[in-house]
């Protein structure tokens, strides 16, 4: 079995009060006038503590983005392509950094290959309103980036079975729903 390693340069969050806040936030910030106070009330934290922790997590880079999380599909972006490419290991980081800058690429990751079934190691997500337009944009992007000659595949999502927030937070809350 493939060894699963943590992404580089990251340390897991360990402060129990931060973890409790992360778990409570999973359901979304309350849509109330004083949402941080209301969230804190469920955790035994003051509004100031909630705000202070969220600011510290944001400034420290643990929270990469805080705000509205939109469902692409409901916003009309129904053509959702996962582009996967088999890039030689010594080129993958440079290729990933360039692809990430492409307009239309919303996520760009290097992942472990799963040989022999799955040779691809670079992933880019591209969203659009029309499948043919997205397909053409992807091929154009791969050509411009000098990646079109590498083994690659474009996997469009054809049905969504589930999309929710992640199950982060405290293990005791992780009983099967």
């Amino acid at each position, binding site marked *: 079995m493939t060894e*699963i390693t943590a992404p580089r340069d990251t340390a897991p969050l360990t402060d129990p009060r931060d973890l409790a806040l992360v778990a409570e936030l999973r359901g979304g910030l309350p849509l109330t006038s004083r949402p941080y106070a209301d969230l804190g009330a469920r955790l035994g934290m003051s509004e100031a503590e909630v705000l202070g922790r969220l600011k510290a997590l944001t400034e420290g880079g643990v929270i990469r983005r805080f705000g509205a999380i939109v469902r692409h599909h409901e916003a009309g972006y129904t053509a959702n392509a996962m582009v996967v490419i088999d890039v030689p290991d010594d080129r993958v980081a440079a290729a990933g950094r360039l692809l990430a800058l492409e307009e239309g690429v919303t996520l760009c990751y290097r992942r472990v290959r799963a040989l022999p079934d799955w040779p691809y190691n670079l992933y880019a997500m591209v969203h659009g309103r029309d499948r043919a337009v997205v397909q053409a944009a992807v091929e154009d992007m791969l050509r411009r980036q000098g990646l079109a000659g590498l083994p690659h595949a474009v996997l469009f999502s054809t049905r969504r*079975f589930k999309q929710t927030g992640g199950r982060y937070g405290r293990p005791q809350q992780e009983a099967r729903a």
Partner: protein
Amino acid sequence: MQTAYDFDTRLLNLSQHDFPLTPRPYAALAARLGVTERVVLDAFRLMREEGLLSRIGAVYRPGSVGASCLAALKVPEDRLEAVAAMVSGFAEVNHNYRRDHAWNLWFVVTAPSVARRDAVLLLIEEEAGLPVLRLPMVEDYHLDLGFALS
């Protein structure tokens, strides 16, 4: 004339980044849009009911909160519905999509610990009776800047 759709688009684009970390964030957004706090709250509630808004929340740096793994299954067509439902039934599965490829079921397992994540992957493998591709992240090249709506 500004329509409700235009207003929602402006509100979402404004609130995907730099969401106010101040005691009354919806009032702060409302002030920037020239409306009342009530209008902003009602708009968000409606968007959430309609499914456009998943939530107001945080996107974490990969690896910093919990352990996750992209995974895939190659499911025979006549079993896809049942296997997809089994996979979705795990609380630790937060994305589950069909994609047009021989590896046709793609999902993300996110758990509080590596041990729990790997246990869920094994359970799915056993219940499906099919090998699961495990595709953990090595490196992230993108800053999640949200999603510009137009």
